C-alpha cells in the first residue's frame, strides 16, 4: 500500500521538475529526460532507472501534476517504449548500465522503440514464429521477416523474439533480444493497408548481428520474457474514465444529428443499439477501474477489447449506411508518410476501412473469445495439433 509519505515525495518531485524545466518552454526530449532523472518516468522503478521505488499507483500523482503544467503524455510519443519495452528491460536487461543506457533515451523519446514479434506465418499463434537466431561467438545472427511493426521506420531499437532451437517444442525454443534498427541487415518497408495508408511496416532481417549482451533472459526463455511485455500491454488501465457518449460512438451520433433529412426509424434503432452497447461497455470499464482500486479487476476487465473492436466496426458501418451512395467516395489513396502528431484517422470513409483491422490487431476476436472462455470461465482448451512436437515438425503454411 502507498503511504502518504510516498505520495508527498512523488508530488514534490513532480512540482520540482515542472519548476526547474517549464514544459511549455523546454524541448520535449529535455523535459522528459528531466522526469526520468527525477524518478517520475515509472515511479515504481528503482531509483536511477527512472523511478523512485514507490507503488505503481502513484504514477497518476506525477502525471497529473506534469500534465496540468502543460507537460507531454510520453506514452503517446513512444507507446511501445513506455508500454512494453520499459518494463521488459527493467526486468530482464543484463546489467544496470545497459538498463540505464536504454531507458533514459527511451524515456526522453529520443529513442523510439518497436516490437518485432508477429510474422507472416505467426499471428494468433505467435509462439510458432520462424525468424531464426544462430549463435556466432559473442554474437547472434538473425534471419527472418517480421510484420505489423508500428513505428519501425522511426525506431532506434526493437524488441525481438526469435527461434534459437528449432528442435524444441515451439514455446521452448525462443529467445528474446534487443535489436539496433539502424544496424546492417535490418530493412524496413512500409506495409500499405486497405486504407491506402501505412501505419505499420514489414521488417526484413538478413544476417543482422546482435551482441549476446543484448539478449534479455536466458537462451530458450524468450516466451516467458515475452509474457512480461504482453502482460504489460494488456494491463494498462487508464487512470480516468471516459465521458458518456465519447469515443467512436460520438462520430455516429454527431453525424446523425448533422443529417436529420436521412433519419428513419430503422436507422434510429440501429444507432440507439450502438449507443446503448457503448454505454454498457463504458460503465463496465468504469466498474473495472473502480474494482482495480480495491484489489483487482474481475471478468469485467477482459471484455473491453472484444466489445470495443466490434463496436467500432458497427459504428462505422452504420455511418456508411446512413449516408448511402454519398459515402462511396474517398479523399485520397496516395500513401503519405504520417507526420508526428497528425490525426491519422482521416475522413469517415477511412475510419470505416480502418475499423476492419480492429477485430484482428492486438488479439483477434476469436482468440479473445477463447481467452474469455478458458481463462475467465475455466472451459477446457481446444485440442492442439502441435502439442509437445518439435517446432520443426509442426506443419506450417
Amino acid at each position, binding site marked *: 500500500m502507498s503511504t502518504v509519505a510516498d505520495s508527498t515525495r512523488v508530488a514534490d518531485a513532480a512540482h520540482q521538475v515542472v519548476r526547474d524545466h517549464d514544459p511549455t518552454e523546454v524541448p520535449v526530449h529535455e523535459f522528459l529526460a528531466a522526469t526520468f532523472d527525477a524518478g517520475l518516468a515509472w515511479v515504481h522503478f528503482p531509483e536511477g532507472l527512472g523511478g523512485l521505488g514507490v507503488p505503481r499507483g502513484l504514477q497518476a500523482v506525477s502525471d497529473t501534476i506534469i500534465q496540468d503544467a502543460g507537460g507531454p503524455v510520453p506514452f503517446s510519443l513512444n507507446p511501445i517504449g513506455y508500454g512494453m519495452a520499459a518494463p521488459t528491460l527493467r526486468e530482464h536487461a543484463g546489467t544496470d548500465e545497459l538498463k540505464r543506457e536504454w531507458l533514459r533515451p527511451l524515456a526522453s523519446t529520443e529513442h523510439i522503440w518497436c516490437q518485432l514479434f508477429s510474422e507472416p506465418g505467426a499471428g494468433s499463434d505467435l509462439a510458432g514464429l520462424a525468424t531464426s537466431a544462430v549463435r556466432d561467438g559473442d554474437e547472434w545472427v538473425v534471419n527472418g521477416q517480421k510484420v505489423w511493426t508500428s513505428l519501425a521506420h522511426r525506431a532506434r531499437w526493437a524488441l525481438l523474439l526469435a527461434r534459437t532451437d528449432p528442435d524444441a517444442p515451439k514455446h521452448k525454443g525462443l529467445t528474446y533480444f534487443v535489436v539496433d534498427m539502424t544496424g546492417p541487415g535490418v530493412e524496413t518497408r512500409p506495409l500499405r493497408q486497405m486504407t491506402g495508408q501505412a501505419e505499420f511496416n514489414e521488417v526484413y532481417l538478413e544476417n543482422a548481428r546482435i551482441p549476446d549482451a543484448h539478449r534479455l533472459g536466458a537462451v530458450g526463455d524468450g516466451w516467458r520474457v515475452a509474457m512480461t511485455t504482453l502482460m504489460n500491454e494488456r494491463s494498462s488501465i487508464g487512470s480516468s474514465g471516459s465521458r458518456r*457518449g465519447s469515443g467512436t460512438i*460520438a*462520430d455516429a*451520433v*454527431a*453525424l*446523425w*444529428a*448533422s443529417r436529420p433529412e436521412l433519419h428513419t426509424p430503422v436507422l*434510429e*434503432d440501429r*444507432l*440507439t*443499439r450502438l*449507443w*446503448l*452497447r457503448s*454505454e*454498457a*461497455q463504458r*460503465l*463496465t470499464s*468504469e*466498474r473495472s477501474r*473502480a*474494482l482495480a*482500486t480495491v484489489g483487482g479487476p474481475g*471478468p*469485467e476487465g477482459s*471484455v473491453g477489447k*472484444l*466489445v470495443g473492436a466490434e463496436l467500432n466496426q458497427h459504428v462505422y458501418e452504420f*455511418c456508411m449506411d446512413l*449516408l448511402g451512395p*454519398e*459515402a462511396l*467516395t*474517398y*479523399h*485520397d489513396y496516395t500513401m503519405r508518410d504520417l507526420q508526428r502528431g497528425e490525426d491519422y*484517422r*482521416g*475522413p*469517415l*470513409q477511412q475510419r470505416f476501412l480502418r475499423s476492419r483491422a480492429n477485430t484482428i490487431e492486438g488479439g483477434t476476436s*476469436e482468440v*479473445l*473469445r*477463447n481467452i*474469455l*472462455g*478458458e481463462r*475467465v*470461465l*475455466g*472451459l*477446457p*482448451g*481446444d*485440442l492442439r495439433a502441435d502439442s509437445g512436437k518439435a517446432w520443426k515438425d509442426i506443419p506450417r503454411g
Partner: protein
Amino acid sequence: MADSAEFVFSDEQRELRAAVRRFAADQSDEQVVRRLMESDPGFDPKAWARLGGELGVLGLSVPEELGGVGGTLVDQAVAVEELGAALFCGPLFGTVMLAIPALVAAGDEQLLPALVEGTRTAAFAVGDRGGAFDPADVSVRATADGVLSGTVERVVDAAAADDLLVAATGPDGVGLYAVDAAAAATQARRTQLTTLDSTRRQATVALDGAVGRPVAGPDSAQRVITHALQVGAALLAAEQVGGAQHLLDLSVEYAKGRLQFGRPIGSFQAVKHTLADMLVEVEHARSAAYHAAWALGDGSDDPALAASIAQATASRAFAGVATDTIQVHGGIGFTWEYQAQLYYKRAVTDAALLGSAEQHRGRIARLVLDTASADGAPWVATGTE
C-alpha cells in the same frame, strides 16, 4: 450508511449478499421452487416473513422513520439479485420493486411497516406503458370519496396481495389509492391467471365500489408512480443479472462435464464462444443495473435514462443468456425436469415487464439522440479533395 464509490461494494454489502445467498440455498432450492409454483398462493408466507423479519431484506432502502432499514438502493439491489438467482418464489415484484418504493416516495407510514416486515404483501395495480406512466392510460375511476371502479389487467402478485395500490382517475385527476384486499373482497375481485412463468403470478383486478385510501393525490401521484417505476426498473434489472449469472454458471459447468466426440463440449469453439458472449452480456447487464441502483440512490444521473439503460441492457441479457442456455444444454435444456425452462420463462417475463428492451431503447433515443449536437461530426470525403 456511508456512500461508497460507484461499483465498489462495502463489506456490509458483501455480507448481505452472502446471507441472502445462504437463505436462498436453504429455503429456495429447485425442489422448493417447483413445489411452490404448483401450489397456492405460489410462495411460502413463512419464508417471506423470515426474509422481512429475520433477514430484514424487504425494505433495505426504506428510511428508518418509515419503518425500514435506512440503507441504500444498492443494498436492495444486492438482495434482489441473489433472490433472482435462486428464482425465489414470492411477491418481490409487486411488494419490493414497486409498492414499497411508491409508498416511500409518497411518505406513507401506514402500510410500510407490515410490508417491510413481510407480514403483509402488496401489488401495484398501475398500468404502465413500456415502464413509463401515462395518466391517460388509467382504467380505474375514483369518486371524490375514493370509491373505485374499473379493471386492471394482469397485475403481478395481485392474487395473494393484502394491499393493492391502484391508480385511479378522480374528479381532480389521477391519484394513487390503497385498497385493503381482504376488507374489499367482494368489491375487489381478483381472477388468478395461468401465467407463462409459474413462479411469478398475475391476476386481473376488477374493482366495483371498493374503497381506496388516498396515498398520493393528483399533485404528487405522477411523481410517486414514476419514481416507483424507475426504482422497479433498476431492481428488476438486478434480478435479471442474478438470473443470467446463474444460467451462465450452469451452462459453463454443463459444457465442462458433457462429453461428445470424446471431449467436453466446452472445448469446441462454437460452444466456447457462445459462452464468452454470454459472459459479455452478463457483465454489461451488471454494470448497467448497478449504475442505475447507485444513480437512483444518489441522484448522480438522469433517473429516466439510467433506468432505461438498465432495463434495455438487462432484459436482452437475461433473455439472450436463457436462450443460449437451452441451446448449450441440448436436448435436456428443453425438458420439463431440467431447470433451464424455469429461468427461460422468468427471463421472457422479466423482459416484458416494466417495458421491453425496445421500448426503453425508444426512450433512450428520445433522451440522447434527439438532443445530440452535430458538433464534431467526422469529415465525410467527397471525392474532390
